[in-house]
């Protein structure tokens, strides 16, 4: 008879690092880590040696020197005497502007096209297919260049507005000028302005926050809050007494009276664009480079989003549509209330990567002369200072930061939507 005994307790031997599955993973990881560190050290060493030979040690001092070039499209104040760091910051803001605008437009257009591709109207469905295929199968760089060229060729130049019998006129009660240099719209002005807060003093990251805008925002939020309060009170009364008091006139008053009062106090008026000398002056000028880039990026990305949306809608079982029809919902409401909310779960993850792609593709802005961060930090600054290593690494860092933030926000949203799942 044999009895069951404990297996012999093996003492640790070196070969167990390789043959024993308990330790093997440690070995593999150690080797991987070592290899990675060796590789990194090797690259770093090479770089330092090469830089020493070139006589260009890593130095970020150039960021503090005057940039000496101008940037046309900018949200913050900047002139050619500001530093390279300031110019890069302006570029970064420009990248964010076009990325945000592009993502919003691409989503709207993409959803619309995706839905229309499934339209019962044969012609519309075909046109949408042609649109999607055209944009998906031609490089985005070409689309950006073409969008710019089309805007420039098809819109009137400012000089066409001149003369007694001009070839072109301003639109919307003479308040909007659409030219091939960009679109000029009336700008809000305040005659009793509250001024603005200057954040970060005089540094390169200085940031002006308009107090007027803040005041408007505060009043708006307060009004909305008050309206909700009133509505919930009305609901409460309805629950207790069964009679819902009329609230719409109160709500309207809460929404509009404080706002109008505030605007009156601030002396709100519109500044209209006007043709003076070579250009329109006054008003807000949205340059063609931004519009072209925005259009091209959003149309390009929208083509991909349309496919995702279409796939998402097709993934929802037909029974859902039939059930909605049975409830008597019209096709539009079926789509809006039943299909899209469910499709959203399938749609959002690939959507994130499309937003990321759009942001990354905005780096092609130099093709139309929109000064994003690739155009400033990775463009003129790099050309003028010759600091390639520093500039490219900083550039990559910026994009990495943006990308990671977008995926973080979108993943958070995705997690929220996914919770609805049953």
């Amino acid at each position, binding site marked *: 008879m044999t009895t069951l005994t404990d297996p012999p307790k093996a003492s640790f031997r070196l070969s167990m690092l390789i043959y024993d599955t308990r330790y093997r993973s440690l070995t593999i990881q150690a080797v991987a880590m070592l290899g*990675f560190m060796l590789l990194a050290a090797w690259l770093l060493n*090479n770089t330092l*040696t090469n830089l020493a030979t070139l006589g260009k040690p890593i130095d970020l001092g150039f960021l503090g020197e005057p940039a000496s070039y101008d940037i046309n499209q900018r949200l913050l104040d900047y002139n050619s005497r500001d530093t390279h760091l300031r110019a890069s910051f302006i570029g970064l803001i420009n990248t964010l502007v076009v990325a945000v605008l592009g993502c919003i437009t691409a989503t709207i257009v993409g959803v619309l096209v995706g839905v229309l591709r499934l339209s019962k109207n044969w012609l519309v469905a075909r046109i949408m297919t042609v649109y999607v295929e055209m944009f998906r199968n031609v490089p985005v*760089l070409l689309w950006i260049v073409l969008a710019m*060229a089309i805007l420039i060729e098809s819109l009137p130049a400012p000089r066409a507005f001149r003369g007694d019998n001009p070839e072109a006129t301003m639109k919307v009660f003479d308040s909007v000028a659409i030219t091939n240099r960009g679109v000029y719209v009336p700008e809000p002005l305040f005659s009793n302005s509250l001024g603005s807060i200057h954040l970060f003093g005089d540094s390169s990251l200085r940031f002006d926050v308009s107090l007027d805008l803040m005041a408007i925002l505060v009043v708006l939020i307060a009004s909305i809050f008050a309206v909700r309060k009133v509505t919930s009170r009305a609901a409460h009364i309805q629950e207790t007494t069964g009679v819902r008091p009329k609230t719409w006139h109160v709500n309207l008053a809460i929404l509009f009276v404080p706002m109008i009062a505030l605007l009156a106090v601030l002396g709100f008026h519109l500044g209209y664009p006007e043709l003076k000398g070579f250009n329109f002056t006054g008003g807000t000028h949205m340059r063609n480079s931004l519009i072209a880039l925005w259009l091209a990026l959003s149309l390009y990305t929208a083509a991909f989003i349309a496919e995702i949306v279409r796939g998402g809608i097709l993934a929802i079982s037909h029974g859902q549509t039939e059930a909605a029809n049975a409830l008597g919902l019209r096709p539009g409401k079926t789509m809006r209330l039943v299909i899209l909310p469910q499709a959203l779960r399938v749609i959002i993850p690939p959507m994130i990567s499309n937003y990321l792609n759009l942001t990354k*593709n905005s780096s092609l802005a130099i093709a139309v002369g929109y000064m994003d961060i690739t155009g400033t930090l990775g463009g003129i600054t790099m050309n003028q200072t010759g600091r390639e290593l520093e500039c490219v690494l900083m550039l990559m860092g910026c994009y*990495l930061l943006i990308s990671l933030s977008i995926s973080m926000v979108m993943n958070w949203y995705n997690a929220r939507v996914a919770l609805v799942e049953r």
Partner: protein
Amino acid sequence: MSDQAFVRTEMLPEKEPPASTVGIVGWLRENLFSGWFNSILTVVALGFIYYVLSGLVPWVFQSVWNADSLNECREIMTETWGSTHGHACWGVVNERWLQLLYGFYPDHLYWRVNLALVLTLVALAPVLFAEQSPRQLWYLTAAYPFLMPWLLWGGSIWGPIMVAAGFAIGYLGYRILVPVAGGLVAIIAAFALPIIWWLFLAGGVAGAIDSVIPIGIEAVESRKFGGFMLAVLLGIVAIGCSLPIGIVLALGRQSDLFIVKTLCVGFIEFIRGVPLITLLFVASLLLNLFLPPGTNFDIILRVMIMMTLFAAAYMAEVIRGGLAALPKGQYEGADSLGLNYWQAQRLIIMPQALKISIPGIVSTFIGIFKDTTLVSIIGLFDVIGLSNAIRADTAWNGIYWELFAFIAFLFFIVCFSMSRYSMYLERKLHTGH
């Protein structure tokens, strides 16, 4: 009266359906004018189509094909139509289309590029149409990675053969050492021997054999590559080389080894987080800095390296998707058969995961292929770069739309057919479930 029957005893002959529901009219009503909203949409769409075509068609077809310069084009246009507006000058495409396709590749060697392309398609056949193609084609597929560079770059045939020999050496080393020194030593040797061979011996041996038996074709430097061919080549190299890297990265990302996983995730997210153009800046400005002093890769090789790394990150995600799509039972089945990790991957997991990923791989390829246009920004002469160079010719300075139209057309044809193929594949794969 009572025998009056209200029940019809014989069937009425079938009536024609109402004229408005069949034929062209019916189709129109059904598809274009069902309801006021659709009718409006249709009218708007028709107007839009007319607007686009009325501008485009005369421009494309009332055009000048035979002209040696823009000025000549303009003269012909003024003579024929009275104005230079609204007419294309295809003379530039007529004169430069070969250059736009092949770049500066010597024109008596165009056949090599064409042959390489045909070879690519044939070598891909066993992968893409696994059922219909004969087994022997796999040999060609295996030889392709060595044959294609040799055809394009030319030079002595011993170079590629010696590179291929490295793999044979690794395999032989493994086979010989397994019984002698055990599996681990054999695996290490299988990796180390080829590397030693490639780094230190292959060049010398190839040179020596070449001086005895010189077999070779005319060498072409990569600087001569350009035009559409460059885009295709970059796309193929990037996808081909990134496939193995992508598989490794995807497995690494799925592994439960913390450090390996972190490294893989870090690499993938880093590459996916930055735009390709910054990686191309690295290729053109920095890569030489990262390598030992004096190393000098030419720019096309550097771009290939960065494009490969770029594609690898995306490939890893595609393959990860394929791995995730496999039912868990496959993994468990492999475990229950007693297969170890690598055997399971090789025999069970990868063949299925890769098959599922093919549509994703094709769309990654299309993406990379389109992205190759960015190399024009760092001064390579791909189609867009060449179009700028052509405009710098005094004869064609000032020409704009025609070149872009031609380029867009080229890309559209290739990408469209690939995406159709990928859709076909997707449908085919779906039937399995």
